[in-house]
């Protein structure tokens, strides 16, 4: 026994010495010093094809939404390849599964950049997954195109945001409610960053514009217990509910809402995370005549949308709806293509420099890239759910709204960030 422990102690010393030596010999750049340029990943553009990364949750709780985004990304890639590719090179889409898990997103983003040497990546849905991959794209100076409406207050030099920021979705929705005379609001949301930030903005808006928030409740993501919340809503005397619930929770919430006797007439619900796909899974009977706020609906008029819907349904099935995040994902690939062609290069710095003013006749109408914020000018659209499960527009902002992720142009929002 004693001989054993001595040799083990010697071994311990050996290991610690090796560890210490390794640590001492490897002293890299200090913080604050210029980040070494060799950390930037080199995208591989040497062959006749270039790789693009598609980073979505293909499994886990977010798969139901993110698979539709993945499908429309694949559709855009396929169309672009059929039309000759980008700068004469065909796109080779590499799909990685984020598995609805934020650290996995970070790992897969790194795999796409370092292993696959992609020229750009498209994807992510939840803000948490975006926050997890943001440092990865910034570290390797690689581009991410993010296609979902979000809570704003972010501008990364290596992310292009093709979904709405708050002043293109939430603020117009509040303007609309105010115009309808619905000034007493009850806020219901899932417990995570988007609803909490959205509600902070709503409260600041209400305070400045003479609206009142009569209640605010959060349910854990995936929660299906809404008895208490709906009872509180019913007794609150609110004019309308502003709903930022995400995913499955909406099914339980709207069922409870209907069975408690509340209707779209007596107390309308305006939702910002329910699109055509979700309407189908919640059930049209629970949602009829309720309001939504987006920038695109399957019913949005225009030749570009007719073509998009037809192409999507030809590829994935006649009964498949198209939705706002799917459209934002679809146009993100085209916007990147336009940027690359204007830059004449896949080089990230050149693509970024070329981005300002890129225009596209998108299914949602005309969109323009704002180079300063790397967001997109978008038209806000309030819609009403119809008996057929489709959403029809009841109001729009008339013209594309300039993106303002930090709400700098709104006096009432000055204390928010």
């Amino acid at each position: 026994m004693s001989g054993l422990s001595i040799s083990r102690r010697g071994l311990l010393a050996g290991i610690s010495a090796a560890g210490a030596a390794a640590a001492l010999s490897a002293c890299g750049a200090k913080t604050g010093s210029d980040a070494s340029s060799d950390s930037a990943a080199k995208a591989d553009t040497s062959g006749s094809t270039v790789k693009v990364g598609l980073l979505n949750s293909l499994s886990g709780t977010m798969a139901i939404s993110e698979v539709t985004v993945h499908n429309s990304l694949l559709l855009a890639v396929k169309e672009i390849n059929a039309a000759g590719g980008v700068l004469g090179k065909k796109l080779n889409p590499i799909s990685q599964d984020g598995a609805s898990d934020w650290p996995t997103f970070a790992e897969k983003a790194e795999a796409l950049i370092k292993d696959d040497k992609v020229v750009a990546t498209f994807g992510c849905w939840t803000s948490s997954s975006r926050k997890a991959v943001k440092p990865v794209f910034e570290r390797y100076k690689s581009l991410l195109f993010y296609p979902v409406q979000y809570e704003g207050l972010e501008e990364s030099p290596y992310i292009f945001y093709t979904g709405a920021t708050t002043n293109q979705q939430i603020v117009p929705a509040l303007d609309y409610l105010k115009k309808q005379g619905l000034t007493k609001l009850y806020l219901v949301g899932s417990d995570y960053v988007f609803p909490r930030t959205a509600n902070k903005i709503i409260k600041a808006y209400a305070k400045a514009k003479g609206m009142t928030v009569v209640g605010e409740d959060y349910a854990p993501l995936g929660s299906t217990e809404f008895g208490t919340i709906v009872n509180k809503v019913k007794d609150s005397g609110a004019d309308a509910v502003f709903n930022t619930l995400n995913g499955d929770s909406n099914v339980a919430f709207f069922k409870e809402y209907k069975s408690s006797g509340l209707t779209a007439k007596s107390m309308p619900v305006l939702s910002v995370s329910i699109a055509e796909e979700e309407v189908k899974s919640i059930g049209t009977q629970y949602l009829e005549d309720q309001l939504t706020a987006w920038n695109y609906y399957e019913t949005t008029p225009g030749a570009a949308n007719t073509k998009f819907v037809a192409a999507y349904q030809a590829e994935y099935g006649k009964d498949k709806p198209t939705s706002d995040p799917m459209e934002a994902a679809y146009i993100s690939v085209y916007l990147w293509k336009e940027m690359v062609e204007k830059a004449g290069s896949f080089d990230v710095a050149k693509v970024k420099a070329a981005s300002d003013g890129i225009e596209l006749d998108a299914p949602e109408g005309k969109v323009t890239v704002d180079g300063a914020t790397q967001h997109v000018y978008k038209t806000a659209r309030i819609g009403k759910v119809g008996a057929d499960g489709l959403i029809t527009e009841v109001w729009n902002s008339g013209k594309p709204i300039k993106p303002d992720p930090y709400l700098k142009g709104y006096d009432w929002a000055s204390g928010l960030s």
Partner: protein
Amino acid sequence: MTTPTTTTTPTTTSTAPPVALLERFRVPAGFALGAVLLLGIAPLALSDFRLSLLAKYLCYAIVAVGVSLAWGRGGLMVLGQGVFFGLGGYAMAMHLKLADAAATGETLPDFMQLYGTGDGLPWWWAPFANPAFALAMTVLLPMAVAALLGFFVFQRRVKGAYFAILSQALAAALAIWLVGQQATTGGTNGLTDMQGFFGYSLDDPVNQRMVYFIIAAVLLLLMALARQLFVSRYGELLIAVRDSEERVRFLGYNPANVKLVAYVVAAGMAGLAGALFVPAVGIISPALIGIVPSIGFVIGAAVGGRASLVGAVLGAIAVAWAQSTLSDAFPAAWTYLQGLLFVVAVGFLPGGLASLGVVLRKRRTGTATGTATGTRTTGETA
């Protein structure tokens, strides 16, 4: 479960001279091989990206060392290791976020400027600006929580499934609390976007390698420490408590204290793993703490062989690697496979893969009747 076999096996091996000689060289040689592989060959053979993945897997392996001690040796079904992993991770991440903020002349971490209450830094964040305090907390905080919980639970003789459920409830509670405190903990996003690690930029691949070396060295050190515990008098006592708590009590020991030590040490290891995970992966979030990840922490140990230190560590690395690799090829299938692995390992191969050879040998020689007992006994000496 017959106690005589379990207690006599180690004694016979250490008294019989030829076996002892073999044993004397087997263990140090194994450690040396591990050290050469982790500190020498892996950094040369793997790309930066693969090495950073390995660093992540090794963090899980560090948790598995503790699981092997508490569950494998002590019979404590530790299904809530996510709590300790999370506490260690958050302690480290809070320090790194504060250091990042200080480096840019800010007083608040970036997420607090966006989502915070606007009242300045919460009081319980402030001490984490001190690196020594934060480092100590990565280990002491999980150990203190484990000591507090363990003290009440073991004194009251809460065992088996009740202990497992309690530790899971704690994991769920912590994750839910963190999600709700967006202004001070980052909510579901967790703490991300770490720029520096004690003054070294994490953007630099050289420093990323340094983080890997630290993690590998810590793993080897903790394995040596656990090995020492396993063969000590305490290790024997722990196994005795696992196999027959009442007998140990009648012999005059307090089993509660014996279990408490294993639980607290395992918590400290999980905390250290969480702390090292942060610079290696760059994120700590409630998603790494709740019930599912807590189960994930023990699956590797269960598959590899929870009673065998090497088995548990290799199991943790293998399962994490399989998750990264297989989830690419079969996205939706991975979760099912993970559950299946756990069920098979716990239900049919209690000693894990480390005991597979022994089980097969027993089958062949026709002594398969006592597989469960045989597996346990041999698993412990492996």
